[in-house]
């Protein structure tokens, strides 16, 4: 699969997944790679950047039999950003679809 597609999209997927439910990093890697093949390293820098921009808050939670997990939780700004990016993506991909579907 064209890796250029993936780059812009992984961030939007992270935003969307966290806006539906609080997540920790590893969980996001698994959720995304169930559909798109990504390298483990890409998710954490994205999480850090989105947290810095104010889209996520973080908290620690003890896990059974293991070190505490850092969870990411969506903020109101993050929710807005997620909705905007989703809308942009749907518009963009329908335009692309129109272009590639018209065979002549």
């Amino acid at each position, binding site marked *: 699969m064209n890796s250029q597609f993936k780059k812009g999209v992984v961030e939007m997927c992270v935003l969307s997944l966290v806006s539906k439910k609080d997540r*920790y990093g*590893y969980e996001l890697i698994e959720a995304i790679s169930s559909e798109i093949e990504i*390298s*483990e390293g890409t998710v954490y820098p994205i999480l*850090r950047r989105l947290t810095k921009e104010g889209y996520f808050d973080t908290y620690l939670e003890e896990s059974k039999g*293991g070190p505490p*997990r*850092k969870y990411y939780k969506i903020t109101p700004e993050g929710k807005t950003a997620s909705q905007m990016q989703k809308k942009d993506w749907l518009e963009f991909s329908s335009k692309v679809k129109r272009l590639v579907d018209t065979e002549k």
Partner: protein
Amino acid sequence: MTREEYLKQLRTELRGLEERDINDIISDQEEFIRDAMSAGRSEDEVLRSLGSPKSLADSLKLEYKVKRIDASESTWETYKEILGSAGILLALAPLNFIILFGPVVAILSFMFSWIVASAVVVFTGAALLIAQFVVGFFAGFNFVQTATLLFGSIGVLSLGLIGVAIFIIISKLFIRIFISYAQWNISLIKKNTEGRI
């Protein structure tokens, strides 16, 4: 080894990157290891899947320096990054050294002589142009002589400027090639050292 030891070694191996980037990387890797362990994987297995601290650091360093080449505007910064990346690529594998050393030296010498030659031509053209205005001013302008020299020196000047333009185009081409080669290296290393979940 424990994850504290692993991360300490990784931090040492990452020397050369900016402090901020190193802290980010260590914090990311720490979070990843903790998360993976909290999901039931053993510390040993997770650390093994990352590869040795040195090989992980090498591929991360390359990735971060290549990112900076892509992002940087100024040509001088670009050349400094390239020298840095060339150093890391050399460290990566002896094979890279054998492949790169000769061509890089040859390319740099060629580019240097090209730009020097172009500069000389530009100066010659400019000097000729100026000289004959000075001569004409003192000794009077002879039309045919002046016209010939005028167009001749403009021609020389243009040749020099074309040489400079070609130099810039070829530099950008070599930079593109170098970046592709470096990214190909990264993908090879990733295939070797990264585990699949």
